[in-house]
């Protein structure tokens, strides 16, 4: 992963009495919301990256021979499963005791 973002200035020099400037990045673990989980069938995945293109949360991660969702972020919308041209992704209900 190539880092793109850079700190525009030395954040320690921002005076406290200035209008608030956000310098901390929020991370929300939206995986908590999920009711259904995408499960990738590695045999069927051909690495066409269609899931990566359309995943609204952009949580699809590349593995050696397949792609899969990062379950700490995935909200379970099911777009990847619906769009997968080889039906390699199925949505499985999250069970309480899993």
């Amino acid at each position, binding site marked *: *992963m*190539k*880092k*793109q*973002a*850079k700190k*525009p200035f030395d954040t320690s020099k921002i005076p406290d009495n200035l209008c*608030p*400037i*956000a*310098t*901390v*990045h*929020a*991370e*929300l*673990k*939206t995986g908590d*919301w999920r009711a259904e989980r995408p499960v990738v069938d*590695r*045999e*069927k*995945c*051909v*690495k*066409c*990256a*269609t899931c*990566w*293109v*359309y*995943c*609204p*949360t*952009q*949580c699809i991660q*590349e593995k050696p*021979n*397949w*792609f899969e969702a*990062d379950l*700490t*972020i995935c*909200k*379970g*919308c*099911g*777009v990847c*499963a*619906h*769009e997968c*041209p*080889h039906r390699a992704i199925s*949505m499985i209900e999250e069970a309480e005791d899993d």
Partner: protein
Amino acid sequence: MGIGYNTIAFHADKCDGCGKCVTECARVHSQTDNPAHSRIHVAWDDKAKWAGLALCRQCGEPDCVSACPAGALVKDAYSGVVFWDENRCVDCHLCTLACGYAGIVCNPETGRVVKCDMCNQDPACVKACPREALEFKKGAQLFNQWGDLEDLVVPGLSSCLGCNSELVVRHTLRRIGPDTVVATPPGCVAGVGAVGVNGITSLKTPVFHPLLTNTASMLAGARRYYNRIGRDVTMLAFGGDGGTADVGFQSLSGAAERGEQMIYLCIDNEGYMNTGVQRSGTTPYGSWTSTTPVGKALKGKTRDAKPMPLIMVMHGCEYVATASTAYMDDYYAKLDKAVKAAKHGMAYIHIFSPCPTGWRFPPKLLIEAARTAVQANLVPLWEYEHAKGDIEFTYSPEHHIPVDEYLKLIGKYRHLDQEQVDYIQKKADRNIAQLNKFTLHQEITTGG
């Protein structure tokens, strides 16, 4: 750096078993029409109207390769294609047994195996299909070019499931890069936390929260400051349709007329989704919203949507385009042009943005909705470059599907009667006819 591979998708519901792909494949690879030489086969059940496809999928972990005792099958790491070496093959046909998809089969005429080689990434079968049942998906090219770059939006935004705005924001910033100042007026993009609160932000670029009314004028001022200190920084607005076509229109119109240098992106989800699904100026005719309800007499919105992209063309913007996230490669190409145009004047992109929550449809159908609306000519994809002076379609409106195909997907149109559907069809046809009048190519340059 990872790599993805192009693939051929098969839409069984569009296939009528005509077999043109089969004969075209045989013609290209063996110069005959004999289907025995074809690497693609279609099973068609006339009674059930059911189609099945037998074609090599170029598997990620191909069973044929591991079954081959002679090393005649090799998966190419660059293109992803499983290549067959006819000199090494010992004709044992074990691969045909190992493959669960009938993707590699024995040619009865020659006694040797045949398999798809993707025609050097330009498959003939896809071009031969008259019903677009075969589709060559090139999303992997976007991934290979851009997938390695850091997402400039933090993981996890509090947007709804299947939010198109989130998809737009992430892809746009990945393409445009960190030298960007982002404005997010009140609306979903700001509401999901992109702009942040109390010293915490969700974008890794500078971002600010203008009023609904002054997005374009604030960005214009920021850009003029950067011009003065000699830095080339892209100004980018993520406006909603309300913040663009209604409340923010005055400042946008002024900035467009003055030719301020910025990319103004209108994420059009056809209403005020962030505040409870009220109608906006771009809500289309017939839509249910909380302020255009459906009852005994009321049948949704009675007025047509404002043709916002055309209004911006009339302003003489440097670059104007419409886009849909279903056609992501088209969107990336338009962003390329917008970035260049924004160095001289205003680039305006109008993105069709289906909203599962406000439009009442399942989140998984997000891209399906974005695609069908384009195919039904309700969201024609085109671009306008001021120097050329004409509108060019980037998706041909000629072979369109009926508007009904799109309307039936979306809950906010569930109440429509036939008369209303007919009106929407006529309106779509007229929009295309109107756009066609703008396709006259007349190059001019300004006097100074």
